[in-house]
């Protein structure tokens, strides 16, 4: 396919623009951003793909903003033998027009036009390749998916086959593999499981086998039942025969058994007779034995009576000995008792002696105490009298003492207030005698004496001088007071009957002494009278003791008492000892008494026994005599003998009969009879079982007959046969499909491997322009570059720099375009790629473009760019600058006016490409 021109109207930002493209080689469409380069590509896709009625997102996005007009695209295209102009408008008044100019003119509109174009493109163009050889804007130029491209494959096929090998109609194998795979998918899933027809056949086969097996099993069961019925019939017949034979045997046995039974009864009667006779013999023997026992008992009892009499006699001696012993014990007891009385009396005398001695001692003590009591009572009386005589009690004395102190105080007051007369004797003078108020005072040399002058005082140096000192008036008063006091004192003394204070004090002391003495005597009295209460009682005690004592006047001493006490103790011990012996003798005596009593009792018992034995013996003898009178001993013995003989006869008879019966073996006969009856029963049971099984089998057979198993089996077999055949056929077809697919795939792989070489040669030719002559590439069967080797270094494609990947990807596409047959080729469209390539590489890429498109009839290459310097290196490029195509109202003044319509690009291909036409909007198509 080749694009000759593309016209856009009201498409995105483009108002109306027509671009003509060079038919061969590179066309560079350059322009600023948003000028509508990519829109051209989008418009072409929509033109070919979208029906005019479509409202898909890309179409709605293509409608220009704010304008009531549908986007419209027109393209002039040649492909294969066709050349046509194709125009479409969407959204507003949709329309499709097709004008085919070659090979035959054709005019179509609407859906017919769309269908026709689709058919033409499908017929002549590899649309996958058209997509594969395009580089979109803003995407890294990577590997194109070229492996499945038919046009490329054919080109490579040509290259691989070498020149000169012409192939007729190469379209035959188009999609052959796909159809083979489709065929295979009818039978197997991609994972190899059976599906579709094959699966259905397998299921049918399995079902048919199951059904056939089911029917056959049922039929076999019926066959078995038929055989079982035959067997049952035979068994029943045999059983009837056996039953018949057995009945005869049973009858014979039963007869024998009946005869034997009557004989059995006879034997039984004989046995009973024998038993009876034996019983009678036994009875006679028992009576005889009873008589014998009676005689023996009488003899025994006689012996017993004799033994009892002997025992009585033997006990008599023992009895007498016991009595003697008792008498001896009694005498000993009397003696012991007398001795004990004596000893007790001696002890009592000793006790009394001790008591008398102790009384005497007590009497002496009591006499002494009486004397001391008398003394104390006398002293107490004296003291109490003295006490009673005393007038000065303690209070009176205290009063006197107070009065005396008042006197002294009065005197002191007086003396203190009174003048003093000091008498002093010089040192050198001799001793001086002074009389003061009548009192002589001797003063030593150097001594002095002071005298108060309370009243008048008289001093006298005998012989020398008398001095009277009289106090003044005041002093006299004080002196009166003293006197007053003194008088009061004197009166009090007088009242008390004492001379003065000192006398009073003395009297007081005397009274106190008397009181103390009285207390002492009372204490003595109390002490002595302790235990007796008062003196008369003491005296009474004393008198009592004295009255007890024989007035022998023997003095006693404590030593005597001790001695007497020891003697008394000894006597007491003797008395106790004697009493003890007396008790022992008494006990012995009593024991002997008991023995005598026991002997008495025993004698009585023995006598009783002897009497009883005698009595029993007497009675037994009477019994024996009575029995003998009734039946003499001899009669009894004779009866015993007779009956024993009879019993033996009966027993022998029975034994003989039993032996005769045993010879005929009745046990065996009975066992046989019983067995025969059991056999008959078993045969009946067998017959019942056979009948039951027969009935069951017959029932099953009747049911089976109505089930029509033969028909079912026949149908199942037919179905199985058909299923087997169908399965075989389908399995064969499936195997064939797999074989064909496998073979085709294998050969395609092989061919693809052979395609790699020419493709690689072409890619390497172009890539060496960029990378230098040392470049080598590895390309796989899907025609992908896997490794690049440069200067001997091999690097995986994915590890290459973005720039290198971009350059290799471009080389691969251009190689593709160069390889594909011109009549089948499609334009290579590169939308602003090579952003990763440096200027040096860009320059070399220019050469690549040229090299790829230089051949005659080479592919059409369209480059869209906003950076035209990237593509300056392409020598043979046709450059088409694009300017914004605005609506008339917004058109810039700088743009050239007047559209230039150029059609028929094929006329002057070198001149017309690169022309941009802004068409006047005077007319709208449709």
């Amino acid at each position: 396919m080749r694009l000759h021109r593309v016209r856009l109207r009201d498409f995105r930002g483009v108002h109306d623009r027509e671009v003509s493209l060079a038919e061969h080689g590179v066309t560079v469409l350059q322009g600023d951003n948003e000028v509508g380069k990519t829109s051209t590509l989008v418009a072409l896709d929509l033109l070919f793909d979208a029906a005019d009625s479509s409202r898909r997102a890309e179409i709605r996005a293509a409608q220009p903003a704010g304008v009531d007009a549908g986007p419209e695209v027109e393209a002039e295209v040649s492909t294969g033998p066709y050349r046509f102009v194709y125009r479409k408008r969407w959204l507003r008044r949709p329309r499709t027009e097709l004008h085919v100019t070659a090979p035959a003119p054709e005019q179509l509109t609407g859906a017919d036009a769309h269908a026709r174009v689709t058919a033409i493109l499908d017929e002549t163009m590899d649309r996958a390749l058209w997509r594969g050889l395009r580089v979109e804007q803003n995407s890294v130029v990577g590997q194109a998916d070229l492996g499945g491209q038919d046009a490329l494959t054919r080109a490579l096929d040509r290259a691989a086959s070498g020149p000169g090998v012409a192939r007729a109609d190469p379209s035959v194998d188009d999609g052959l593999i796909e159809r083979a795979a489709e065929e295979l998918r009818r039978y197997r899933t991609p994972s190899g499981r059976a599906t579709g027809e094959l699966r259905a056949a397998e299921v049918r086969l399995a079902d048919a086998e199951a059904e056939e097996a089911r029917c056959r099993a049922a039929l076999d069961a019926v066959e078995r039942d038929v055989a079982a019925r035959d067997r049952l019939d035979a068994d029943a017949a045999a059983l009837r025969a056996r039953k018949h034979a057995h009945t005869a045997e049973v009858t014979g046995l039963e007869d024998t058994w009946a005869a034997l039974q009557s004989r059995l009864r006879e034997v039984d009667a004989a046995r009973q007779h024998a038993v009876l006779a034996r019983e009678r013999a036994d009875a006679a023997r028992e009576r005889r034995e009873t008589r014998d026992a009676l005689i023996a008992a009488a003899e025994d009892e006689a012996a017993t009576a004799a033994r009892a009499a002997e025992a009585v006699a033997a006990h008599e001696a023992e009895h007498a000995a016991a009595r003697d012993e008792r008498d001896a014990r009694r005498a000993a007891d009397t003696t012991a008792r007398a001795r004990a009385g004596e000893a007790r009396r001696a002890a009592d005398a000793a006790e009394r002696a001790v008591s008398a001695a102790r009384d005497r001692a007590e009497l002496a003590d009591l006499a002494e105490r009486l004397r001391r009591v008398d003394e104390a009572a006398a002293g107490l009386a004296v003291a109490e009298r003295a006490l009673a005589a005393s007038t000065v009690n303690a209070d009176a004395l205290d009063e006197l003492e107070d009065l005396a102190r008042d006197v002294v105080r009065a005197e002191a007051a007086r003396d203190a207030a009174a003048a003093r007369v000091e008498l002093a004797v010089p040192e050198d003078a001799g001793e001086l005698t002074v009389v003061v108020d009548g009192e002589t005072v001797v003063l030593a040399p150097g001594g002095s004496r002071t005298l108060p002058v309370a009243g008048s005082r008289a001093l006298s140096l005998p012989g020398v001088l008398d001095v009277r000192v009289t106090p003044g008036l005041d002093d006299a008063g004080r002196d009166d007071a003293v006197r007053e006091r003194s008088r009061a004192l004197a009166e009090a003394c007088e009242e008390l009957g004492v001379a003065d204070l000192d006398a009073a004090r003395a009297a007081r002391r005397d009274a106190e002494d008397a009181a103390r003495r009285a207390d002492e005597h009372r204490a003595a009295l109390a002490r002595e009278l302790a235990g007796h209460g008062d003196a008369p009682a003491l005296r009474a005690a004393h008198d009592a003791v004295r009255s007890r004592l024989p007035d022998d006047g023997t003095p006693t001493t404590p030593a005597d008492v001790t001695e007497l006490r020891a003697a008394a103790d000894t006597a007491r011990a003797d008395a106790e000892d004697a009493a003890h012996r007396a008790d022992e003798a008494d006990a012995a005596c009593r024991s002997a008494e008991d023995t005598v009593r026991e002997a008495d009792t025993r004698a009585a018992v023995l006598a009783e026994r002897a009497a009883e034995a005698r009595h029993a013996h007497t009675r037994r003898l009477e019994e024996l005599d009575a029995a003998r009178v009734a039946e003499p001993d001899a009669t009894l013995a004779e009866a015993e003998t007779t009956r024993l003989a009879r019993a033996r006869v009966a027993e022998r008879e029975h034994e003989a009969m039993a032996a005769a019966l045993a010879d005929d073996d009745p046990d065996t006969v009975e066992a046989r009879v019983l067995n025969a009856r059991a056999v008959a029963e078993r045969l009946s049971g067998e017959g019942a079982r056979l009948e039951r099984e027969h009935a069951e089998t017959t029932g099953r057979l009747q049911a089976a007959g109505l089930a029509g198993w033969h028909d079912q089996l026949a149908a199942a077999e037919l179905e199985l046969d058909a299923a087997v055949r169908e399965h075989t056929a389908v399995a064969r077809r499936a195997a064939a499909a797999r074989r064909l697919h496998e073979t085709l795939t294998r050969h395609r792989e092989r061919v693809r491997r052979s395609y790699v070489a020419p493709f690689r040669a072409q890619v390497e030719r172009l890539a060496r322009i960029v990378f230098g002559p040392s470049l080598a590439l590895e390309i796989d069967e899907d025609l992908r570059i896997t490794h690049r080797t440069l200067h001997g270094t091999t690097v995986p494609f994915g590890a290459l720099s973005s720039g290198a990947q971009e350059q290799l990807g471009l080389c691969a596409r251009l190689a593709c375009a160069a390889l594909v047959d011109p009549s089948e080729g499609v334009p290579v469209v590169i939308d602003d790629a090579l952003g990763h390539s440096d200027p040096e590489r860009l320059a070399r890429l220019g050469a690549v473009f040229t090299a790829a498109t230089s051949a005659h009839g080479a592919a059409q290459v369209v480059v869209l760019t906003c950076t035209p310097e990237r593509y300056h290196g392409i020598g043979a490029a046709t450059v088409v600058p694009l300017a914004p195509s605005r609506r008339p109202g917004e058109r810039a003044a700088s743009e050239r006016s007047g559209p230039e319509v150029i059609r028929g690009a094929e006329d002057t291909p070198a001149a017309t490409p690169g022309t941009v036409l802004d068409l006047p909007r005077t007319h709208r198509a449709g």
Partner: protein
Amino acid sequence: MRFVHTADWQLGMTRRILGARPPKEAGGLTGEAQARFAEARLDAVRALGRLADAQDAAFVLVCGDVFESNLVGPDVVARACEALGSFRTPVLLLPGNHDPADAACVLRRPDFVRRRPAHVRVLDTPGVHEIVPGVEVVAAPWRSKYPLTDLVGEQLAVLEPAPAGTLRVLAGHGELDVLDPDDDEPARIRRDGVLAALADGRVHYAALGDRHSAWTDAVDDRIRHAGTPEVTDFDEIDPGHVLVVDLDERAARVTTETVGRWRFVRHDAALDTDADLDALDARLAALPDKERTAVRLALVGTLSLRQRSRLDDLLAGHGLAFAAVEVVEQHSDLATVPDDADLHELDLHGFAADAATELFAAAAPAEGTGDAESRDALRLLHRLVGSPR
């Protein structure tokens, strides 16, 4: 005395070649031939009944295998009774090896007994049966599937010569020892015994069944197999008849009457050229009554891929008209060998051509046996190439 001798009705029989019941999901009439075949067997019964009525026969003697099995369904029994009721000549049914008088015997089954027309009599007990005064039938019925003696011989051994004026017909079922000299089979009918009985007048005619082909003894033509009245298999000789027997004490005059309408045709053909194919085509086209004809083909030869396709188409086309067309594998030796013309016709290029060449090589019958799978693959390739998307 005239009677009709027949045997081996095999009512309830199905034939594999006539196809199966159609699978549920599949349409078509795959099993319809089977149904028509079953109907044809009943038609034959009705036809021989009409014949007996028309010929004023004393009775119709069926020598065994009235039913295909004792276990046929009640529908088969009911339809058989209907067919028997369509005429009035008395019918004597002898249990054979397919319907022996064992515990499951269909002739004693309640559904048969209930529906049995009055003129139908079952000879399920061995011995002499008086049919009409002066006519007796000596029955030797099968009592189990696997008898251990010559049942006919057993009956003949205890038989006294027939009273004067009485005609006796022996009714037996089984192969004569001269027809199938298999020593291991104890139930074979001793021909000598039968001949002796005929000679000394114990019986006057030996009516036999079990052999679906008609047969007459070379020594005494009173020993006969009637054959099946409607064909049952490809190997039967002259089936589809009943025998009308006019009997007296000395001889039997036997007329063969046709009642069967179906044919089982076996055809052996050598196929190597297109002419052979043409001949086969013509041969099949020439067969009459195709809807009542089953064809079994034994094909021998070598065909190219294209010829094989033609054969397949040819057989498929005839299969539509015939009751059945079958290529029997075990008797066929048909090789498909692709030739250069086949390869050229494919008109392939590139790897597809290489793949086709490889398959051709594999399919070529080097060493005698070609690779069937590769031939199938080639045929598929043929089809795929011939039917572009």
